[in-house]
């Protein structure tokens, strides 16, 4: 069964169509990249999936259940995790407390299990030695990693990452790809990404959005060979 499905999902901003009748399916346990030129409506799309942005019309199904009417926090409670395009952590709190808030929704009644989860997640992403640091004092790259840690700490069924490698150094991008690959099979990942290296190396499956509409779907090899995609997007991006 597909973990996520949308039917006719549409968003209109005062006459501008950001997403037009997007029918999308997301396969369970895979890493799917959502790509497309700037302004293709990728962030709007995942915003509507996660409930941050109200849809103009259309439906969202999560685990076969229609969640179109649920507010964002209820969707997250069903097992979605979401990282923002623009880094969004609790800047005044320590790294540990940031992750504790993420894991605490389900584990706050059991302090020991909570502590174990936090330690395990921080170890996994490699910032355990910084757990006492204030999040706002971390470097940009570490803040992005912290945000990913906050997503993982929720043990999500579906993990939506909105441009996680934006602004990262090349070595950090390589670490990110490795981290994401280790998550394959554990959870389903929907990745919005501009960096073609990340997409080609990390994704099992690619969906291309162009001008608010679904343009193509397929494996990285298929997408690479797709003429329509090349015209719309890859031709310029890969050469650049």
């Amino acid at each position, binding site marked *: 069964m597909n973990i996520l499905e949308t039917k006719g999902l549409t968003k209109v901003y005062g006459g501008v169509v950001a997403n037009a009748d997007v029918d999308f399916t997301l396969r369970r346990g895979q890493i799917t990249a959502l790509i497309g030129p700037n302004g293709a409506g990728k962030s709007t799309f995942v915003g509507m999936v*996660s409930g*941050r942005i109200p849809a103009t019309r259309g439906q969202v199904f999560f685990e076969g259940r229609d969640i179109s009417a649920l507010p*964002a*926090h*209820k969707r*997250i*409670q069903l097992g979605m995790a*979401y990282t*923002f395009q623009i880094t*969004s*952590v*609790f*800047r*005044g*709190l320590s790294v540990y*407390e940031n992750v*504790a*808030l*993420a894991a*605490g*929704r389900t584990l*706050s009644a059991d302090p020991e299990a909570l502590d174990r989860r936090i330690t395990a997640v921080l170890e996994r992403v490699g910032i355990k030695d910084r757990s006492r640091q204030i999040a706002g004092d971390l470097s940009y790259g570490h803040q992005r990693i912290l945000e990913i840690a*906050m997503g993982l700490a*929720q043990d999500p069924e579906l993990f939506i990452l909105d441009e996680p490698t934006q602004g990262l150094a090349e070595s950090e991008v390589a670490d990110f790809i490795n981290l994401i690959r280790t998550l394959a099979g554990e959870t389903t990942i929907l990745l919005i990404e501009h960096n073609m290296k990340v997409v080609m190396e990390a994704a099992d499956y690619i969906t291309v959005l162009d001008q608010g509409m679904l343009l193509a779907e397929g494996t990285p090899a298929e997408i690479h060979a797709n003429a329509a995609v090349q015209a719309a997007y890859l031709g310029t991006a890969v050469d650049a």
Partner: protein
Amino acid sequence: MTRFSKADALHLGILAMLVIAFFVLPTYHVGAVSRIMVLAVYAIGLNLLFGYTGLLSLGHAMFFAAGMYGFGLAIKFMAAPVLLAFVLALIAAAALSLVVGLLALRTAGVAFMIVTLMFAQTAYLVVLYFGEFTRGDEGFVLQQAERLLLGFDVTSETGRYFVAFSVFAICFLGFARLVQTPFGKRLIAIRENEERARMLGYDVGRYKLLALIVSGTISGCAGALYALLFGYVGATFASVQYSILPLLWVLLGGAGTTIGPLIGVMFMFYLIDASSAYTNSYMLIAGLVLVLLTMFAPKGIAGILRLRVMPWLP
């Protein structure tokens, strides 16, 4: 764990000092500290909403007044015993907080400030409108005989001090505990980054409403306590001045710290007290000090302590 025990030691140490203060301070200051403790309860109430949840209410006087009038009117018109009147006062404040919260929390930021200010003005005008019962600006006095707490006279200096101390201690320690619970930490999360908190699956609207209800009820508790200990109920306490004062206390003492409210009230009380000994225009001196503190210590006194010497300060 050291962090927790240090904070606990600090809180208990402050309470111990307040007990000792009663025995060593001259009468004038004993009376002053009684008043300070009552007003500090009020500041604790606002601190939960403003300092911890990040919601700036400019209308907390309505909750203080709800407690004060809930208590005073219950005694005046129902001849209710003190404890019952106190419970009614808390219910009145909680109910008002719920209604105001449901409406005002539909807004955020500056709009929230204005809406709470408007609600408080309405509350003030309601008090004046029903002057037949509330005696309006003039207010009314609760007789000594009406202020027996389980047969115990709270109008004596000793009685007043220790009733104020007991209620303060409960609110102070309860509050310190509350902000360490998952509930308290989620309020801080909302203050730090509301959208992030929502996208971690927290029902931000519900948490804010709960914070407002607890905050309003604590403020109402202070209002009822004031009426009980000082025997006076008047519309001044519903005026805009009494919405701004707790904000100043919290800002001066340190918003978002457990000890800030007490420090702020005490500092401001003695600032005005000391400067009025020299000049009639004492508010000028108070104002100047406030401006300087805001410029050089925007996080308040406890905020500075946390930054410089006590990073573990809760």
